[in-house]
């Protein structure tokens, strides 16, 4: 027996957006779909705030000397850009929005395991963001998002509120991860076996493991820095026998796995997108599923590659370098599988697919430079230069944000029941991808020429490439703004999409779009895997309109 098709008369209740009305009903909602939408609003706001800081930074760097701000403001601004983008957008965005919205729909559950804790995570996000932003208004932090000691314990700027904010955001991240792990273990509908789990759920599961196991370490470490600042405990202070390098170890023990908190959900999103728009099953389902766990596992043993120049022993550096390359191995498994999935597929070039192509290119480019950086002898040359900046922006912006946009376009009709303007979407996608290249390829070159990151001014010979990078950033900013505008417009004027405009066979599309307040009138029972396009017709999809 297959689940009730979306057009089934069993679905006749109001959708989750209309079921109850009023601001109060949103603020106290336990519905995972509404919580997903709340995360969408909050993280997109943060993204644009962080983006404005990025543009201001790029404008400052248009000339070698002072342009629009003084050096101290510049330091505060790159810190805020990093803190906002990482803690308020990259880490919570895909899990908070798509994880919350789609994991229950994909596994045939009525909600996540702990709906109240889920709502709590939104409020932890709000509280953490409010405290961090308050700290920024109180004078801001100039330590960079990494809060390296002893600078972070001695600078005159306001560090403690930002640390506390990040700590609270971390708690929100932990409970989200915990919730997803328990949900996937206990709430799968009959027929949704582990080997039929949609690949997005696999990726989110691996992400959640990292969130639960790594974030407490960051939380405690940030509290120690705050204690040190406020009370002078001396844990990281060399004058009192403390060891600042201990901070680096503890910080990266979280913060390196954290980059996989940012990229694994993205890999999950594109796994769904590539199957839908190639109309093919995943070429190697198990390989893609288990490589997510592989990345999550090996990600815990690579933090030392941030300490190549911190006096770490050469042997340890070598080991950490080789372990880091394993991440490339698991990533390559995924890349080959995505590529092979497209082979002989009936590819439909639409906005989500264009973003998927962008993702693939940026991930491979960024990933290969990552392998280069994990080679100790090369890293000593590139350490703390723009080469590193360009590398992680390729993965984070080029990878995660492309996948975020792919998922946002792919699931937009599912979430809101409306289609966006495909023409504008394609134009914006091209603009974003071109703008991204123009921004960060010059930064690879600058880094290789020796321009250090986080510097306020630079020698004359770096000027042309910096101008190119800023020009690219403005294209990128324009592209994101266009996306925001046509998506908001589509909420009012968009064509009604029907339950399944892409004819996707992902499990989540077996419900009306937008879904009803109660996900399923009766527990769905699945007798086939998600995205089985080749194995005979799927009746429920053809009936949908």
């Amino acid at each position, binding site marked *: 027996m297959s689940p009730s098709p979306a057009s089934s008369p069993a679905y006749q209740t109001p959708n989750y957006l209309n079921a109850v009305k009023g601001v109060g009903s949103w603020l106290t909602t336990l519905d995972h779909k509404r919580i997903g939408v709340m995360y969408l609003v909050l993280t997109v706001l943060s993204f644009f705030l962080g983006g404005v800081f990025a543009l201001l930074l790029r404008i400052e760097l248009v000339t070698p000397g002072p342009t629009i701000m003084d050096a101290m403001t510049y330091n505060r601004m790159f810190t805020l850009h990093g803190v906002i983008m990482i803690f308020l957008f990259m880490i919570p965005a895909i899990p908070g929005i798509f994880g919350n919205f789609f994991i229950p729909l994909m596994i045939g559950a009525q*909600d996540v395991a702990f709906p109240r804790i889920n709502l709590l995570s939104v409020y932890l996000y709000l509280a953490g963001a409010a405290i961090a932003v308050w700290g920024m208004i109180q004078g801001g932090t100039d330590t960079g998002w990494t809060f390296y000691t002893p600078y972070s314990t001695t600078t005159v700027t306001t560090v403690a509120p930002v640390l506390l904010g990040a700590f609270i955001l971390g708690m929100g991240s932990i409970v989200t991860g915990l919730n997803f792990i328990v949900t996937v273990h206990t*709430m799968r509908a009959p027929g949704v076996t582990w080997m039929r789990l949609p690949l997005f759920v696999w990726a989110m599961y691996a992400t959640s493991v990292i969130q639960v*196991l790594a974030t407490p370490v960051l*939380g405690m*470490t940030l509290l120690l820095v705050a204690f040190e600042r406020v009370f002078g405990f001396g844990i990281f202070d060399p004058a009192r026998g403390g060891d600042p390098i201990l901070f680096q170890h503890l910080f990266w023990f979280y913060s390196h796995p954290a980059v996989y908190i940012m990229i694994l959900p993205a890999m999950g999103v594109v796994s769904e997108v590539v199957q839908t728009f190639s109309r093919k099953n995943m070429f190697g389902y198990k390989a893609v599923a288990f490589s997510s766990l592989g990345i999550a596992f090996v990600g815990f043993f690579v933090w030392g590659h941030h300490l190549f120049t911190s006096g770490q022993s050469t042997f340890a550096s070598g080991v950490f370098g080789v372990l880091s390359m394993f991440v490339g191995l698991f990533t390559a498994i995924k890349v080959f599988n995505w590529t092979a999935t497209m082979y002989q597929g009936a590819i439909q070039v639409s906005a989500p697919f264009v973003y998927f192509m962008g993702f693939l290119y940026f991930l491979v480019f960024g990933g290969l430079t990552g392998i280069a950086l994990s080679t100790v002898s090369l890293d000593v040359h590139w350490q703390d230069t723009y080469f590193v900046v360009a590398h992680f922006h390729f993965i984070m912006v080029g990878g995660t944000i492309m996948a975020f946009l792919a998922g946002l376009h792919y699931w937009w009709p599912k979430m809101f029941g409306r289609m966006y303007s495909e023409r504008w979407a394609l134009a914006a996608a091209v603009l974003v991808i071109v703008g991204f290249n123009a921004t960060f390829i010059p930064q690879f070159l600058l880094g290789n020429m020796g321009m250090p990151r986080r510097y306020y001014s630079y020698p004359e010979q770096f000027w042309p490439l910096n101008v190119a990078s800023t020009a690219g950033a403005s294209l990128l900013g324009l592209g994101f703004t266009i996306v925001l505008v046509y998506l908001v417009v589509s909420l009012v004027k968009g064509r009604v999409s029907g339950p399944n405009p892409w004819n996707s066979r992902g499990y989540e599309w077996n419900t009306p779009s937008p879904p009803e307040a109660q996900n399923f009138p009766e527990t769905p029972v699945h007798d086939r895997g998600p995205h089985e396009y080749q194995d005979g017709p799927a009746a429920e999809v053809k009936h949908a309109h």
Partner: protein
Amino acid sequence: MHTEAAAAPSRLAHHFPDMKTQEHAARMGMWLFLSTEILLFAVLFTAYALYRFLFPVGFEEASRLAHVAMGATNTVVLITSSLTVALAIHYARQGENRKVVGLLAVTILFGVTFMVLKGFEYHHHWVDGQLPGRFYSYSGLQGPGVSMYFALYFLMTGLHGLHVLIGMGLLGWVAWRATRNEFGPGYSTPVELSGLYWHLVDLIWIFLFPLLYLL
């Protein structure tokens, strides 16, 4: 008084198919949460290991200043409280709610005893100026690593004490529910889960005591 049959359906949340699944989820969530607690403390244990290695003499001498008698008493108190909590879980499963209330009350009293003794220890250290980092002013012992020992001592026992307080709150809430006869053969998860939390708090102390008082 509720009968089991009347009360059970209301405890099933709308999104779970049955009580068995719901309790499985709750138990799993608790174990995952406990693993995050261990990782939270792991940072401090790592720092302890590093600084013990860097300042073996300073740490050894400073740990002689810890009040071993009170610490040892507290160890006995906490281990005994683990027994009373385990018994409470046993009786909750049998539906003997009055015994659950009594045993949890005893457990909470043990918790209070622990915190009072801990308070005396803190008071002595405070009076003697045996304090973390820049507040350290004890003339009887100076030297590298000594103030670091007290930074870690206060951070580790402070965080642990906070957990004892939270645990007492949890057990108090569960005891209140037991006064309403809520637990029985079909439903005892809250007692079990808060008991698990209490055991973890004990377990952490069992590591803290030798590291900070005896070594």
